[in-house]
């Protein structure tokens, strides 16, 4: 078993699989067998390494060589050069963008330098479909320790002491939540894992379930023991097939080993887990809506109180935790609350996983201590803005969050600082925007999302958001007035104050934060009828400079709607009434005669 001299880890996350990492594994196995090395070199498909920008990733151990953007056809060279001759394949190593050095050890890459991986500790390290590897990494030890050496209340106190707060967005203290559920007496209680990840651009929960499903299973059992529940439910989106598959495999293996089921480790404690599939409605991430959806009812939220801890699934006390929160629990019990509390800021302990997306060089999944600044995340780990453009804003917290700007870059990220800055942590999605992004359009995009996802139960959310969207739409089309800006702000506050659930209460945030931080851009749209970022098509006019135009007819020939007229060798003219602002003429003009006004 341990005869293997080398391990080849291949990323098996959804992203890398989309880039054929399956074929890389198959080719590796084939090539190694052909060289009679299959008993010396082991090929393992792991979860996500996080550096999705550079995927598929192949890591060779113990050489600790990190190959990026590997293609199935590169396998022969890796085996012949690296595995057989011990020479690193230079062209597949990561190229540091500033120093232009090839880097083979991920620890030396800017992307990984500042990261501390707690929730992601096993992602990209173990085979998620093999419980043995999880056990070898201290898996289920926290559960064993709790069941044999700790009382349920001890576990709750330890989690309380660690300062762990909910990673799904709310930031509610996890230990306190468990305490409430434990204090409510009932014949049956439930532990629910909220895997209904829905923020645009966020994929940490999916990656954890794909890369380390057992950590979530173990944490759910721990929670069950603490609050006195014997049943666990995972509410997961049906659109996460790989995460569902790996979770099922993991649950089966845990049952087979007696780590789920009756009388776990001979302690008399029983716990089992079932899956419930969601149809991908954003509002079902809200815990009361989630519970109704699991009960087979419409996914609509209800007023709290009663909180799920009193009356949740089937009107029984229910504890709902997010995937990332749960993934941090076993480590806290093993390494101690003090260890966890020593990482992070005063009120936000530990680490947080962020999904970097948008106009950033290193798209991917990162885990950093709370208190890391946005600047460190975007410019050091994220490698800065794509194509050397200028940073404009970063949107955090998804549709419930807001846009933060240059002036917030040095704010240490934690739950409270982000709220003070007018945004929120949310589930950890970070969408980076550059000078080409129009902030009014960004607000409109998020409102479009909320209008689509509103369940329609309460009027402020159903009707209010629709009106917000209409106002924004009007402004982007050049028909907005100054009164509209006031209306936007007032309506936003009304919705925030009166909506029923978290979705409605936070949906105006993208509007308010862009109004606060980019008011001038709104004014430009309203007063000057101008979109400086050049995104709002209705506000653009394409003009041909008669002095620069030589009359080559290239633009006229390529215009799909025949909006350009002019004689050969004479300056051409665009008819703005016909022009659809597609930009085809600018691309074709060799004389830079066409510009957007």
């Amino acid at each position, binding site marked *: 078993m341990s005869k293997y*001299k080398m391990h080849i880890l291949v990323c098996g996350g959804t992203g890398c699989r989309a880039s054929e990492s399956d074929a890389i594994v198959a080719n590796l196995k084939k090539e190694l067998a052909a060289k009679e090395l299959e008993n010396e070199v082991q090929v393992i498909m792991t979860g996500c390494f996080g550096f999705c920008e550079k995927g598929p990733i192949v890591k060779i151990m*113990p050489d600790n060589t990190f190959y990026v953007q590997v293609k199935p056809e590169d396998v022969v060279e890796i085996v012949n050069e690296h595995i057989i001759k011990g020479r690193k394949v230079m062209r597949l190593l990561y190229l540091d963008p500033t120093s232009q*050095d*090839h880097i083979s050890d991920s620890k030396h890459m800017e992307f990984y330098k500042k990261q501390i991986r707690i929730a992601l500790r096993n992602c990209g390290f173990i085979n998620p479909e093999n419980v043995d590897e999880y056990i*070898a*990494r201290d898996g289920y030890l926290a559960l*064993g320790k709790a069941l044999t050496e700790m009382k349920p209340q001890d576990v709750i106190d330890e989690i309380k002491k660690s300062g762990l707060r909910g990673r799904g967005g709310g930031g509610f203290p996890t230990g306190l939540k468990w305490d409430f559920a434990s204090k409510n007496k009932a014949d049956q209680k439930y532990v629910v894992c909220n895997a209904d990840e829905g923020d645009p651009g966020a994929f940490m929960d999916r990656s954890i379930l794909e890369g380390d499903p057992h950590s979530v299973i173990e944490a759910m059992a721990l929670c069950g023991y603490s609050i006195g529940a014997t049943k666990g439910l995972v509410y997961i989106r049906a659109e996460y097939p790989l995460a569902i598959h790996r979770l099922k495999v993991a649950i089966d293996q845990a049952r*087979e080993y007696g780590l789920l089921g009756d009388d776990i*480790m001979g302690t008399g404690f029983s716990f089992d887990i079932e899956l419930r599939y969601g149809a991908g409605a954003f509002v079902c991430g809200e815990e009361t809506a989630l519970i109704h959806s699991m009960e087979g009812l419409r996914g609509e939220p209800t007023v709290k109180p009663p909180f799920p801890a009193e009356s949740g699934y089937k009107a029984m006390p229910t504890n709902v935790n997010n995937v990332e929160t749960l993934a941090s629990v076993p480590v806290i019990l093993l390494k101690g609350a003090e260890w966890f509390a020593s990482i992070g800021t005063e009120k936000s302990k530990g680490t947080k996983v962020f999904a970097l997306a948008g106009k950033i060089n290193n798209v991917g999944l990162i885990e950093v201590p709370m208190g890391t600044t946005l600047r460190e995340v975007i410019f050091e780990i994220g490698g800065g803005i794509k194509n050397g453009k200028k940073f404009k804003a970063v949107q955090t917290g998804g549709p419930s969050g807001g846009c933060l700007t240059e002036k917030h870059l040095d704010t240490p990220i934690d739950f409270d600082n982000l709220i003070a800055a007018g945004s929120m942590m949310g589930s950890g999605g970070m969408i980076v925007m550059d000078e080409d992004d129009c902030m009014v359009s960004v607000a409109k995009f998020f409102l479009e999302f909320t209008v689509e996802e509103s369940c329609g139960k309460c009027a402020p959310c159903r009707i209010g958001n629709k009106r917000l969207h209409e106002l924004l739409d009007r402004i982007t089309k050049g028909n907005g007035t100054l009164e509209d800006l006031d209306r936007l702000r007032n309506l936003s506050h009304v919705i925030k104050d009166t909506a029923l659930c978290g979705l409605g209460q936070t949906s105006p945030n993208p509007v308010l934060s862009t109004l606060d931080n980019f008011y001038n851009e709104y004014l430009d749209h309203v007063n000057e009828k101008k979109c400086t970022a050049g995104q709002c098509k209705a506000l653009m006019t394409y003009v041909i400079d008669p002095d620069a135009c030589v009359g080559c007819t290239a633009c006229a020939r390529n215009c799909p709607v025949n909006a350009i007229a002019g004689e050969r060798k004479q300056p051409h003219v665009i008819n703005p009434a016909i022009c659809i602002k597609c930009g085809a003429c600018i691309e074709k003009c060799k004389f830079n005669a066409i510009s957007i006004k």
Partner: protein
Amino acid sequence: MTKVKSLADLKQMKANLEAKVNLREKAETVEDHVQVKVAMATCGIASGAKTVMEYLIEEFDKRGISAVVTQTGCMGYCYAEPTIEVKRPGEEPVVFGYVDKKKVDEIIEKYIRNGELVDGIIPVNYQSIK
């Protein structure tokens, strides 16, 4: 079939399974372990580098020394094959030439355990990329 009947069972199981991921864990914290690179180019292999490498892995295991053994290409000392490079934690690497099983014993017991230099050292004349 229940495999894990108690916490003791689980701990036993972990001890047995540790080897499965041990190699990966050590590689992540490579600076804390003895690192040995065996030159495994044609010249090295022809002179017995493969046997030396296998022997090293087995002996480290038997003697309870936490080490990472990797293979590397030709180090350029073809006249002195098999050659190995040994790096004790926090120290500069040292290259030994003409290594066989007997030499491995000596290197492990004298140099790796106690830092005593033994015969057969070749001055290092290259730099590696990080």
